[in-house]
Each structure stands twice: as C-alpha cells, then as structure tokens.
C-alpha cells in the first residue's frame, strides 16, 4: 500500500517530514562513518542506529510538539535521539574516538553515555535497563515540582526482560507519572531472538498488566511512529500516566562492532529487513507528495558527507583527555 501525505497525524506537517528526512540522512551518514572508523581501528566500540532512525526521530518530534517540556533517557543505540537533540557530529565523534571535550562523560564512558542535561539527554549506564527507574524518578521529581515535563524512556526489546523494567513500569503507572516507555524492538538481544526472550509476539501486550495503554506500530514508518508517540506524550502531559509504545524496527548491523551476526542471523533475513529501510520509505513518501527529488536527496547526502568529514577531521585532531584527570569528580569538591 502506498502511503500518502493526505492524513498526517495532528501536529505533524510536511515540513517536519522534510526536516526529519534531512536529519535521517545526516545521522545515517554519521553512523556509517563511525562504523568505518571502527574498522580502521580508530573507534573502539560502536553500536549502530541504522534501521532505528525513523522510530527515534518520530519520538523526538512527538515530544517537541506535544509536551511543554520533555526529557530523554536514552540507551546505547539512540544516535538519532542524541544528534537530533543537539549533539553535534563533532561531539558524537569525540565520544567514539574517546577524545577530550566529549560532552557527555568527558570520554570516561563508552560513546553516547553520560549526560547532556542542557540538551535533555541522559544515558547513565551500560547495564541494560538500569536507566528505566531513573527515568521514572525524573518524572516523579517533575510531577512533585509541578513541572510539565514528559519523560521518554528508551530501551530495546532485550531490556524488557529485566526486572527493573517491570518494577519501573508498575511504579510509574501506580503513581500516574508522565512517562512514555519507548521500546525499539529490533527482535534481537545481541544474538538471542525475540522468541527466546519472551513468549509474546508484542512487548506492548504487557502494558495491560500495568494498567496502562500499550501499542505496537511500524517503527520504520515515521508517520505511524509519530502518531503513536504523540498520543502517549499527550496522555502523559495530561497527567493520565504512562504508556508503552513499541516501535517495530530493524537492526541492519551486528549488535556492536565487536559482534559477528553471521553466526546467528541469515543474510536473507537482513536483506529482507533492508526492504523496510526507514530512509527509503520516507524518501518515497516525500517524493510521492512532490517534496523530494533525487537531485535534492543527492544534495542532502553531499551536505551530510561534508559535515561529517569536517567533524571527523576535528575529532581526529583533538587530544585524548589528560591523564591527571583520572582522579577528579568522584565526590563533590568541598572547600
């Protein structure tokens, strides 16, 4: 079925879609560069966002348009969230190369971990799902202070097997906290497929157990993802409590640059998944509406390449953090 622009969800217009597409092109270009720099021995570890971009960007746009304020608790595969929230390609690459000036953790942590509160992003830890209670606590603080913040808690499908996700979802629902639980379901927890993680086909079916709405939509489709996220954001903003939004996405690359997916995933499966490429789908939608041409697309890609080239040069030229910083900022400095 060919998608058209005739019935966009409330709050989303054609200009947003063009903007989202430009972001997608930049983020895909950056992601591909980071992966290449890993293979060159420059980036120690990479978890690619390729295949997740539509879901991540749609959720961010829904937060912007449907909440007075918001905050994102991301996980390691959320490059499109962090970059669309203002982490520049240079800053992202400083992280992947572990260079001085990296804004999230000072290159103390793996890339994409730490905090940029001024850009509404926190991702504390590599221990999967530990951040979901943090997101709920941030929402509790906002509610106690009467602030209009909606908190987005991002996680993968594997994270939903963790007990802390259960505890956090239950807590948020009991307390009617303004949280949107966003599950980016790419059907793999590293190598373990979804049917080995859970005996349900849709993570969202668990929402009923917490007394909150749950929905599953095509996470490679920006419009559908936006509509589902917008409804959940509005519910949270109204004070009606949390929701679970499951975005069905694809993981085009191995779990991380240290993983070899060929031992557990058939090539044909990935080829099939590539037919749902969120970039191709959004481009087709925009072309159908006369909002994109191959020429304009080529310009966007060239512009993204130049931006990522410049970011690569800047990050490669940056020094590593000075070794005497290793003991700093364990506790508050007093006196």
């Amino acid at each position: 079925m060919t998608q058209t622009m005739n019935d966009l969800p409330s709050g989303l217009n054609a200009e947003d879609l063009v903007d989202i597409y430009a972001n997608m092109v930049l983020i895909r270009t950056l992601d591909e560069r980071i992966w290449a720099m890993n293979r060159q021995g420059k980036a120690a570890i990479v978890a690619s966002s390729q295949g997740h971009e539509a879901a991540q960007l749609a959720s961010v746009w829904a937060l912007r348009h449907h909440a007075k304020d918001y905050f994102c608790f991301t996980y390691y595969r959320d490059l499109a969230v962090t970059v669309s929230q203002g982490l520049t390609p240079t800053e992202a690459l400083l992280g992947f190369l572990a260079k001085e000036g990296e804004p999230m953790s000072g290159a103390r942590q793996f890339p994409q971990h730490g905090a940029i509160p001024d850009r509404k992003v926190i991702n504390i830890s590599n221990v999967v799902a530990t951040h979901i209670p943090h997101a709920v606590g941030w929402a509790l603080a906002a509610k106690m202070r009467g602030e209009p913040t909606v908190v987005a808690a991002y996680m993968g499908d594997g994270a939903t097997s963790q007990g802390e996700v259960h505890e956090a979802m239950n807590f948020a629902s009991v307390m009617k906290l303004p949280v949107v639980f966003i599950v980016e379901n790419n059907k793999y927890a590293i190598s373990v497929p979804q049917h080995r993680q859970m005996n349900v086909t849709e993570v969202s079916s668990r929402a009923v157990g917490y007394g909150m709405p749950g929905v599953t939509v095509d996470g490679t489709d920006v419009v559908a993802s936006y509509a589902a996220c917008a409804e959940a954001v509005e519910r949270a903003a109204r004070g009606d409590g949390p929701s679970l939004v499951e975005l069905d996405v694809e993981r085009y690359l191995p779990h991380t640059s240290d993983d070899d997916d060929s031992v557990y995933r058939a090539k044909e499966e990935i080829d099939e998944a590539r037919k749902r490429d969120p970039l191709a789908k959004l481009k087709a939608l925009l072309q159908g509406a006369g909002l994109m041409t191959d020429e304009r697309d080529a310009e966007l890609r060239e512009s993204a390449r130049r931006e990522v080239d410049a970011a690569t040069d800047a990050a490669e030229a940056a020094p590593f953090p000075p070794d005497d910083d290793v003991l700093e900022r364990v506790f508050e400095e007093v006196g």
Partner: protein
Amino acid sequence: MAIMTVIEAVREAMREEMRRDASVFILGEDVGRRGGVFLATQGFIDEFGEQRVIDTPLAEAAIAGVAVGAAMAGMRPIAEVQFGDFMFPVFNQIVGEAARIRYGTNGKLHVPLVVRSPYGGHVRGGLFHSQSPEAYFAHTPGLKVVTPATPYDAKGLLKAAIRSNDPVVFLEHKRTYRAVRGEVPDGDYVVPIGVADIKRAGDAATIVTYGLTLHYSLQAAEVLAGEGVEVEVVDLRTVSPIDRETVLESVRKTSRALVVHEDNLSLGVGAEVSAIIAEHAFDSLDAPVMRVAGPDIPAMPFAPTLEAAYMPTADKIEAALRRLLEY
C-alpha cells in the same frame, strides 16, 4: 537538651530537614500510614502528605532507582530500605549506578540521595533480618557509608547525609533503635561525615569500632577500667571514608589496637582499618593489630544459642583486650 532513643533521633533529623527543605522527601515500603516498620516516619504522612511520604510498591530496586532519578533531577530523596538484608536488590542501583554518576557524567550530574536502612543483629532476626552489609558499599568509591551508634550521632549525621551532594548509605543498627538512649541538643546541628569520635579516652590500648559493637566495646573497657587499665574507644561513625587521622593518632598514643565489628571478619572494615594502622603506625605498635568480628559464615542464625555464638559480645571483646594487653 532532650533524652531520646536512636529511632527518635532519626525521626527528628528527617522531620527537621523536611521542614527546612521542600526538596527532601521519603519513599519506601510502609513509610506512609504505617510510619515505617520501625516507626522512623511515624506521623510524617499527616504533617507532610502522601506527596512527600511515598508508600511504594514492594520493589526495592525501583525504590532505589526511582530515588536516583529524582536525585539527579535535583530532589533530595530519602529512600528507606526496610531491612539491611534487602539492600541486595538495591545494590545494582546504588553501587552500580548512583556511585558512578558524578564520575560517569564528568560532573554534569550528581546524586544527593540517602538510602537509610536498619541493619545488624542480636535481635533474633535470623539470616535475613540481621545482616551487616556495610563492607559491600564501603568498597565502592563514590559512596559514603555512615553507621551511627548513638542518638546524638544519628541525628547529626543523618542531617549531614541529607544535605550531602553525593549518595550516602546510612545504616542504623536496629538493636540501638530503642536500646540506646542519650542526650540530643535542641535545634539544628550537624555531625560531619567522615569524622570519628573518641567515645572513651585511654592510654593502654585502642578499640576501633562502630555500630552496636561500640556499646559492647564500651562495656568491655569499663570492666578493664575497674582494674585500672584505661582503654581508648574510637567510634568510626563513618566507615567510608574512614577517619584515618583519628585512628592513627589514638594508636600512636596507645601502641595497641583492637578492631571490633559485627560484620563477618574477612575482607571487611576491620581489614581496612588494620591495613591503615600497619601501613602508617607500624613503628608505634607493641603488638599485632587484633580483630574481633562475626565469624565467616553466611549470616547470623536465628536460634538464640547460635546467635550468641555469632555475636561479638562484651565478653569476647574483653577477652581479646586481655590477649592484646598481655602480648
């Protein structure tokens, strides 16, 4: 100046801080209408309301994790973990997460959180209501671990913990709650975290201890005082960071050191204190550093005979002191 119990001092500290600072709130199991299983928050829900005295679902990891998130957002949560033995579901959020947030965000975020928990035994608590979990937390840089033993210290240290901009594990020995009474000044005062206190002065030997065994140590010191032997008793009050200077100054004066704690012997606070003394006061010692601690078994058993066999009592401390003095 009022005479109060440890639990009353804990309650007073929280009440005063909640009146002083609107960002302070309490969350935990049964802390609301019930007032906590040890009544630490008795009456709080009437004064502060259910928005600031939050009865949570029975889910310790969420209590800690939600508190960490609220603390990052600028609140000052006091999370009550009902028993020290239930700190293990909390462990991931406190040791894994809270302790590393300032460092892991390069100072962008910090966690002004207090996790309070009644710990320790000699109360017929059995394996899962008697444990002393302090060493697990004390091993972790980024956490402060506080173990008051008297009403004065409990109130002043809890206020300091609530005002701390770093996470504090605040362990209250449950046997001291009602068994230990003492003078507490009226009004606001703070006991700084990380400063030990000499609870009894002496020159023949030094006992370094904290928690319930402070009181047993003082009883043992009293027995020897009857024989004209004055033993100095240092109450660490904070087990991380340890107040090295007070410990070393005392040992340099007395030349003999006995470390006493209820937690099991190996790889605990006593091992660290012994190492500090060995490294920095070796030349002052007239005897090896000795330790009295719980035995290396999984936890304190339920049966009274087994519990007594576990517990470092005044008798055991006295016997160890005599060995130390005769060396």
